[in-house]
């Protein structure tokens, strides 16, 4: 059978009538709304400076507070999701999202802005975003790669659409009205979407996608047997893979955050115009959408460890030519090459969790991984500015990015094989 025929056969085998795809759609909407406001931060800086005469650096502190709060509350969000269910956790996140948006719009002092945008919105974001992927994982025993690929693809596409809409609203309505309307519309969309959301297939008397038998064992009652989940979570903490996957997520995020923050200034420092430099970043974002979508599917069907290793290695090696490049087109070419592994680098964690821990709620584990990733993004975002202050250039930052990504690839090599479950899962504990 030819490869194309195999793919066609594989697609035709997918049962799109299964309710799990509704959960994927709700998860994608949640990702889109939750991440878009974060990504839109850049477009509200100028209006805030104009209206309140706040220093851009002080406004930037709100973003830093939000990132730190999101990072440290991610394991809490994962724990809540496991304890009370993803749906209730997301409702709490939604309430905080609405409060955060309204308060931000009405804030008149920088301190209020730190609390509303930094603390409340930061916490809302983790409660909103962390439970999504683990919830989807509970719905899919098979085809988890496709399900997560669709959601992770929205991380790039969603903000791109919402930022454009917010940009138009900012021009015509002002930033306060934009925040109020976005908050209300986002909340209404999510309340409607969450009506269709169910924590587990058992709540609807359904089987997870790809499961063939109903296991009547009490252990399969995932939300009802939280004590069992918590005990099994303690076993997860005792695996090398838990620590190494957190480590790898941190290293990968440092590696690409340096580039995402430092590439435009690097290109400008080499005499390339601002517009052309931003275009390079846009090309990277567009190209990476494809690998964000495809990598979980490939990892699920081939070998996630190898795909993850190649992604990290590629992310580390393909940045090096930028140190020596002076030409705009070479920047673009290297950008396209780099975007391929960059897009795939962060998308395999749900698949790795599944391979190592079987069909087990991954909420808390995933929460810790998001904590590591967020800290990595914070460190990576800080490095280019620090390096520029010292050296007057960004070349050292590129080498640091390469070092962290390649170190990540090395840590992946130390991981156990993904061919067998490391610890007993719900299926094989009786």
């Amino acid at each position: 059978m030819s490869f194309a025929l195999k793919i066609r056969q594989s697609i035709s085998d997918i049962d799109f009538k299964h309710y799990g795809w509704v959960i994927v759609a709700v998860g994608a909407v949640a990702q889109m709304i939750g991440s878009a406001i974060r990504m839109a931060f850049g477009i509200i800086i100028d209006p805030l400076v104009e209206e309140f005469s706040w220093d851009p650096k002080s406004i930037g502190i709100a973003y830093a507070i939000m990132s730190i709060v999101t990072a440290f509350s991610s394991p809490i969000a994962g724990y809540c999701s496991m304890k009370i269910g993803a749906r209730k956790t997301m409702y709490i996140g939604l309430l905080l999202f609405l409060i955060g948006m309204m308060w931000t719009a009405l804030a008149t002092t920088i301190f209020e802005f730190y609390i509303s945008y930094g603390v409340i919105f930061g916490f809302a974001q983790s409660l909103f975003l962390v439970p999504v992927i683990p919830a989807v994982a509970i719905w899919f025993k098979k085809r988890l790669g496709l399900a997560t690929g669709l959601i992770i693809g929205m991380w790039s596409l969603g903000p791109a659409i919402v930022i454009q809409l917010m940009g138009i609203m900012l021009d015509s309505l002002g930033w306060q009205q934009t925040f109020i309307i976005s908050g209300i519309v986002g909340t209404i969309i999510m309340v409607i979407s969450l009506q269709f959301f169910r924590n587990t297939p058992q709540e609807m008397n359904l089987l997870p996608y790809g499961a063939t038998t109903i296991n009547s064992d009490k252990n399969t009652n995932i939300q009802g047997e939280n004590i069992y989940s918590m005990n099994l979570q303690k076993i997860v903490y005792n695996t090398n893979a838990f620590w190494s996957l957190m480590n790898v997520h941190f290293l990968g995020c440092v590696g690409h955050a340096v580039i995402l923050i430092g590439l435009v200034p690097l290109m400008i420092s080499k005499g390339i115009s601002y517009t052309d430099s931003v275009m390079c970043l846009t090309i990277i974002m567009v190209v990476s959408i494809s690998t964000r979508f495809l990598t979980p599917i490939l990892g699920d069907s081939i070998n996630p460890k190898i795909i993850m290793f190649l992604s990290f290695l590629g992310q580390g090696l393909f940045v090096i030519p930028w140190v020596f490049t002076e030409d705009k087109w070479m920047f673009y070419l290297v950008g396209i090459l780099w975007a391929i592994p960059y897009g795939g680098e962060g998308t395999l964690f749900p698949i790795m969790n599944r391979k190592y821990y079987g069909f087990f709620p991954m909420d808390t584990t995933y929460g810790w991984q998001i904590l590591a990733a967020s800290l990595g993004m914070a460190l990576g975002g800080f490095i280019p500015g620090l390096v520029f202050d010292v050296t007057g250039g960004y070349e050292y930052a590129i080498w640091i990015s390469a070092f962290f990504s390649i170190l990540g690839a090395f840590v992946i090599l130390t991981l156990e094989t993904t061919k067998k479950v490391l610890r007993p899962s719900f299926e094989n504990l009786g």
Partner: protein
Amino acid sequence: MIENTIPVKGISLFLFTIVSSFVVLIYFFAWDSQNKIDENSNYKTSWFQESSIFICPLH
């Protein structure tokens, strides 16, 4: 069978990463502080800048 072992390899690599991150930060902070002191001999260093120079063996 459920085992209760300490994941030495995973934790060691994790600690190595934390140390590496601090090494990078301390090196550049020390470099930055040293530059400022070299440029202006009256420059008043903060405890943080002094500490970074003290810890970094290359500055």
